[in-house]
């Protein structure tokens, strides 16, 4: 029977620090599979190649193999075996009031632990329709990408943000989906909500939208949520309605979505 100390220590050993090359930024991550698969937040893994520091002081170079910016999760592969991986819990079974443990490197303190309870599970205004875990655990910058675990040490979420003082975590089931299915289809555009829709700030030349007629400065009609639903619908070709210059003339663009790649 594992006590609290053992549970915390096992989690600490499965938590990594993720660093960007030549930058002070970084965050935490969690060893998901013992053969070198690490999960973190997409906003932590801002580069395609990163440094991953293990609890015992070993450093590895990691490569991003899959990412989902909408759910803020990325998979990193490091060349290591027999790592202390976590056990994943079923985040759909979480109940408000359950005890949770968060581990990470807040403000540069490696392996720092905080405890609390699940506050609520559900959508958050401004963060789409999908469900997030809110927990009353004390988090700080640097906790991002680290594990949120239940009383048995099973990882139920990845700590992702702090909203109104509450910790917000991506449910583990959503993180597992990235590992199982690979990167979801992406448009490859940077958007900003404006009154009439979503303003295209930039189009990634390597992204799916680059081959369409969409350009920076166009305004996509609809909301983030509607765009998210369209991407999740699983169609190969996405029809987008947008405005360019003339606010009365609705134009159309067709984007061929890249199918999901394996998160090997």
């Amino acid at each position, binding site marked *: *029977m*594992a*006590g*609290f100390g053992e*549970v915390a220590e096992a989690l600490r050993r499965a938590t990594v620090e993720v660093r960007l090359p030549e930058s002070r930024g970084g965050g935490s991550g969690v060893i998901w599979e013992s053969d070198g698969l690490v999960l973190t937040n997409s906003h932590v893994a801002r580069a395609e190649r990163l440094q991953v520091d293990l609890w015992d002081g070993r450093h590895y170079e990691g490569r991003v193999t899959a990412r989902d910016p909408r759910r803020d999760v990325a998979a990193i592969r490091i060349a290591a075996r027999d790592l202390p991986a976590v056990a994943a819990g079923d985040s759909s079974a979480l*109940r*408000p*009031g*359950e*005890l949770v443990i968060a581990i990470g490197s807040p403000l540069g303190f490696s392996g720092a632990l905080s405890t*609390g*309870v*699940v*506050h*609520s*599970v*559900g*959508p*958050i*205004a401004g963060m789409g329709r999908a469900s997030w875990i*809110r927990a*009353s655990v004390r988090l700080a910058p640097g906790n991002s990408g680290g594990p949120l675990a*239940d*009383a*048995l040490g099973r990882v139920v979420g990845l700590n992702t943000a702090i909203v*109104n*003082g*509450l910790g917000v975590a991506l449910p583990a089931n959503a993180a597992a989906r990235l590992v199982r299915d690979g990167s979801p289809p992406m448009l490859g555009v940077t958007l900003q909500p404006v009154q009439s829709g979503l303003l295209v700030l930039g189009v990634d030349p390597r992204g799916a939208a680059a081959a369409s007629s969409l350009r920076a400065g166009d305004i996509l009609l609809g909301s983030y949520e509607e765009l998210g639903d369209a991407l999740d619908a699983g169609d190969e070709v996405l029809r987008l309605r947008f405005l360019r210059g003339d606010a009365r003339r609705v134009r159309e663009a067709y984007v061929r979505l890249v199918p999901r790649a394996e998160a090997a």
Partner: protein
Amino acid sequence: MANELAALSDELAAVVERTKRYVAAVDARPRFYSSGVFWRPGVIVTAEHTIRREEEISVTLADGAQVAASLAGRDPSTDIAVLKVEDSAHEAIPKAGGPPKPGQIALNLGRSPDSGVNATMGIVSAVGGEWRTWRGGRLDHYIRLDLTVYPGSSGGAVVNTAGEALGISTSVLSRIAALAIPTGSVDRVVDEILARGRVTRGYLGVGLQRVELPDHQRGLIVLSLEPEGPGARAGLLIGDILVALGGVPVAETDDIQGLLETHGVGSGIEAELVRGGTARKLTITVGERPRRN
């Protein structure tokens, strides 16, 4: 694999599961919801400071139904507002027998329409006797909580591990911690609001400051008088030193507040005072404190 922590975790989640049906989300201010508790059948109690409009208030119940609520009354002094809903069959939350003990585990339960019930956990960090809030209200006990009451959860249910209410949570009665408004005080305010639509508080219309008299007796000197107020009408003058009210010696302004709670609006109260070195007696008819807006 099971451990004591997991057993505690299960127990806490079970308390939330059992108690969540008594907790409603209250929509009575812009941007943030607040929370409220079925205190009696058809009666929801919430934190007064979260009520920013008196009409078009709605509440979201545990089953997700959104229903209209009417404001029965509000008492800023204890931070209690009382709402009424049509659903008079809805059961009220069970209340704990006595005041909690410091160190006891407490949960605060709130609700939001998007994500349902929410919970934070901590301990009761201090319990004191009767306490006057900075807004002038009297609480039966001072119950300080070491748990976070997030913006949407003010007015929620503070419960023990048996799921019994210890009170209603508020973040505005103390600068240093969240408090639970004790169940007895909530009952008293609810009774008064349901009977009269408001909480009346006695009023003398005097500004007082404590002074020490040459014989080491303490008293309260009248510094200001509300024109045509109860004190002025009874013949009280600026410079009078109040030494007893209703036969009880008064040394602090708090003493006056306490006495006015037992002498209702409209009743006469005997004031003993010193004027120019001579003892005098006057009878003041207690008025009602004007409502601030």
